[in-house]
């Protein structure tokens, strides 16, 4: 081959190599534009937005009490649902998680403020007036607490040296029992409590990930394997345990630990979340929002309008309102209200760069980190999360008991 030809070939191939990422990007964008997303017109106008209040930092919706008092995390843990009338609730610790029992006792997982003389992690209980009831030191890494109806708190914790353990603490602050689970998990997953009081927890053992069922007295009932590290455990009204695995899987088990079904979303989303409606429909936010029936079959799929243009995805826990509306927000700041049959009720966009986070109050106050909305219906009283059978109405709530209802109580 002549040198001149070789030179031309070299220049062409080098130019092609330089241009190939742009060409691939162009092909990809053209492909994405061909795929249908939920860009239909909303069924109703979005409610007016109120800017979320600002503290020293932007407060994050944390949990709410049965009487409607809402708690927020910022530099100082604060309470109050009136934008202009929030008050500092606990000034001396950094609060990581909270939960509120039926009698209004506020349980906090926190640690000493930076620069404090002690460097300690705490599990504390406060009265609704903000008076300290009791305080106990805890391991450095701790899950949000799950509260049973009698005020017993359950959490998974781990010291820096490893070895996770499930601990039960009664309403007076006394440790009832501790069960070593032998795992290593810097972000322990909160346990969930079934309608009969059985506690379900993820062990944190990476090499052999398992869910265990433990009685309220600390006796291990069964253990069952799961695919990989678990990020969320919820219990549906009929006692089915649904487990969120960040590999994109949702697994369902019956109360005896037998696998009922497994669903793969096709997307690996670290922070995906699960909510369960009163009729047992599982809403699984993992890339798209999936509605799954009791057999794990897809009822419908909802896709963010920005799914293919900006790789937008749903990665937080959805919440279900009493009227069946599902509220879910996306990574690129779209907040959607979706009807139970998978249609767009309304959607709003934010330019905020804050992380997603949703809390629906009992009276229809929809809280995010960037805006507050007044919606037509409060949090569903059945299903998960709910004011009675909680878990993750913004990470922690009144109680982590699945399936518990007002009637049951």
């Amino acid at each position: 081959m002549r040198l001149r030809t070789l030179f031309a070939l070299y220049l062409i191939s080098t130019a092609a190599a330089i241009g190939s990422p742009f060409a691939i990007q162009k092909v990809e964008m053209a492909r994405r534009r061909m795929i249908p997303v939920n860009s239909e017109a909303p069924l109703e106008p979005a409610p007016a937005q109120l800017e979320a209040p600002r503290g020293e930092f932007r407060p994050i919706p944390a949990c709410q009490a049965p009487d409607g008092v809402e708690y927020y995390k910022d530099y100082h843990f604060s309470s109050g649902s009136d934008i202009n009338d929030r008050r500092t609730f606990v000034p001396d610790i950094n609060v990581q998680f909270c939960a509120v029992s039926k009698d209004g006792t506020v349980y906090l997982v926190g640690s000493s403020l930076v620069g404090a003389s002690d460097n300690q992690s705490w599990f504390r209980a406060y009265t609704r007036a903000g008076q300290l009831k009791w305080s106990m030191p805890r391991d450095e890494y701790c899950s949000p607490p799950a509260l049973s109806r009698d005020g017993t708190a359950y959490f998974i914790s781990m010291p820096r040296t490893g070895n996770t353990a499930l601990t039960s603490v009664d309403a007076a602050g006394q440790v009832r029992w501790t069960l070593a689970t032998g795992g290593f998990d810097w972000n322990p997953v909160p346990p969930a409590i079934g309608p009969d009081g059985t506690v379900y927890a993820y062990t944190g053992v990476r090499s052999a990930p398992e869910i265990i069922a433990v009685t309220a007295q600390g006796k291990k009932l069964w253990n069952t394997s799961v695919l990989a590290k678990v990020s969320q455990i919820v219990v549906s009204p009929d006692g089915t345990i649904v487990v969120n695995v960040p590999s994109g899987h949702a697994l369902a088990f019956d109360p005896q630990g037998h696998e009922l079904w497994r669903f793969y979303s096709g997307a690996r989303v670290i922070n995906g979340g699960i909510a369960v409606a009163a009729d047992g429909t599982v809403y699984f936010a993992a890339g798209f929002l999936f509605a799954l029936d009791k057999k794990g079959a897809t009822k419908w799929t909802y896709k963010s309008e920005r799914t293919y243009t900006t790789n937008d995805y749903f990665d937080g826990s959805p919440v279900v309102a009493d009227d069946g509306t599902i509220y879910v927000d996306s990574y690129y700041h779209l907040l959607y209200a979706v009807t139970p049959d998978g249609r767009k009720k309304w959607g709003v966009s934010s330019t905020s760069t804050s992380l997603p986070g949703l809390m629906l109050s009992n009276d229809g106050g929809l809280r995010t980190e960037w805006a507050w909305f007044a919606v037509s219906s409060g949090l569903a009283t059945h299903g998960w999360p709910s004011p009675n059978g909680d878990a993750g109405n913004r990470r922690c709530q009144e109680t982590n008991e699945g399936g518990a209802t007002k009637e049951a109580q």
Partner: protein
Amino acid sequence: MKSTSSPLQIGMGVLLGIVLQPLSLLIVEGLIVATTRAGTEQRGWGLMGATLGYFAYFGMAQVLTILPAALLLLPTGKRGVVRGLLAVGTFLALANIVLLVFLYLANHAGILGFDR
């Protein structure tokens, strides 16, 4: 100067082309070091990005070394060495295209698990 081209020279060109490759990364890193302040986050991210980017875009990075070397050697009449250099550069460029297309297709096929 008389132009020469022999299999030995071509082999030397290929060898030179391969040996020169790490220099591309050093050139980019040198540019980052020269344009950022020591101990800054910008420099840290820049150096890390350049290193990772080099392995993804080696077919583009070769232009920083192969082309100058070929242009420098061309007037000396060592055409065989230039041929070897250009062959290495062409191979790297084409291989990079194949790699990028493979990654794109594998991603969509769900083999790598990045696609959402």
